[in-house]
């Protein structure tokens, strides 16, 4: 009995190796939907991997916040009392602001950001002073800055005091930073 079974198995294998071309083409047409389905699954998996795997580390928003804070507390624009060696953050020295040079606040030769600083005297609204860093880039970038994928725009307002030769008035300091993403 066992012998017979073995003979049948051998026959099946032998016969199977003799599949006609016609049979193969028939099987392939039968398989086409399966292969198409497999390709769809593969493409879908690639799509899933691509959508979850996002290699972007955009820290422009944090960098802009740090930079704005660096500017706000800077001794380049805040009043400094030399006698007591103390910097008064939030009290803007108008004389310093008039001669403000922000070139020190750079990352090297490449221009990573542009800035506009506006000092408004609230007691005398006609008195507005504007200062720029990378003015050319600022003017080129500002019309395009609506595209949030390309530019990060940070706008900060601080209420300050303005010290001008012993006279103190209320003011508002606006800092606008534009940083290209990436």
């Amino acid at each position: 009995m066992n012998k017979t079974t073995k003979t049948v198995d051998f026959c099946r294998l032998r016969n199977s190796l003799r599949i006609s071309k016609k049979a193969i083409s028939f099987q392939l047409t039968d398989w086409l939907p399966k292969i198409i389905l497999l390709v769809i699954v593969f493409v879908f998996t690639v799509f899933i991997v691509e959508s979850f795997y996002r290699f972007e580390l955009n820290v422009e928003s944090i960098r802009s916040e740090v930079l704005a804070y660096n500017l706000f507390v800077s001794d380049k624009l805040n009043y400094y009392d030399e006698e007591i060696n103390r910097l008064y953050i939030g009290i803007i020295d108008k004389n310093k602001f008039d001669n403000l040079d922000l070139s020190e606040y750079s990352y090297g030769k490449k221009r990573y950001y542009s800035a506009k600083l506006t000092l408004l005297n609230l007691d005398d609204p006609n008195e507005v002073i504007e200062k720029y860093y990378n003015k050319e880039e600022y003017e080129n970038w500002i019309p395009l800055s609506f595209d949030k994928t390309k530019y990060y725009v940070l706008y900060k307002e601080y209420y300050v005091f303005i010290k001008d030769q012993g006279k103190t008035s209320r003011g508002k300091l606006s800092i606008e930073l534009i940083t290209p993403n990436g």
Partner: protein
Amino acid sequence: MMKKRLGKKAQQDTEDVLWVIFELILLAMAGFSMWYYSYQKIEKNNFEEQFLARDIALTVDAMQASPHNLRYFYSFPDKKYDIIFSRKDENRVIALSKKDKFGFYPFLTIQENIAENTFELSKEKKNFFLLSNAKDDFDISDKEPDKNLLYIPEEKIEFEIPKEVLLDPIYYAPAQNLILDEINYLPIDPIPDLLKQRSEMNAAIANRMYLGLTGSGYTVLNTREDTKTGELLSILDEKRKDENIILAFQEMSNFIIAIDSTLSDKNIIKIFYHFNSKKSKAIGIKILNKLSKDKELKLDGVSLVPIHPEDEERYNLLDKNKISILIEINNYIDNKGKLSLNEKSSNIGTLILEAITDE
């Protein structure tokens, strides 16, 4: 005939089995290629290097914003990295891993003396230190800084502390009298009972000091009666003594300690002193160092602030010829709407007391 029929069935079965095997092989190949694709994506990226470069560069930027000295301990995962501070054309932090993957990010150089530097980090040596000495110096080193650098250098002047003290815990009239923030012109006390909390805290610190100072043989004048007893909470609504009496106290006292508590987003204790009073400064340093060394208090920082009292009315009790300081306890509001250091008022009072009496 029968044999032939069986052969066809057998052939059909074998074909089916082979097709299933073929299917499985195809599936395995597809599975492997998908896994390999994902693996390559993850393996080839330089995410960690980019992250490190950005994190270090932003830390350097943030440290340079500080008007005070800062020391930062940067700790690493147990991996081999070269961290390069490059100053060629562009200021860059470059994080280079041993697999030759790298990430870089620019950093600000307001303090021009940030030197080019390279650190090799490994499992055995996985940290370095960033030191910013307020606008003058920025140092990056793999050697741990002397811990004493974390404290304000003490002033070496010999003087005797008067045995008569005036304690002036600032009292805020309850309810409506909101104080406006000097910068934003906005009420700084958004929580209704905050003025009361602040008064309580000032009184509690003064009360602890009062008990300790009188126990150490000091004569203590107090601007608030309630702080002389342990029952201050029940009589907090009592009005502060007449302003003229306080001014008279301030006139005749040679040693004045005023206590105030305010809101902040950090727990910071500040001491204000007359810029010309070296004795006040020396006492202020002793108190701040004592407070900052205390582990339970967990302060975010301390600050010693010289004042021109002529310019700011609030500080008119500070006098150059006296030992006079204003201790300001900056609290954040915890999730129960309470001042974060309120429960530690007694500790603060004890530490100030110990700094004064040299215990």
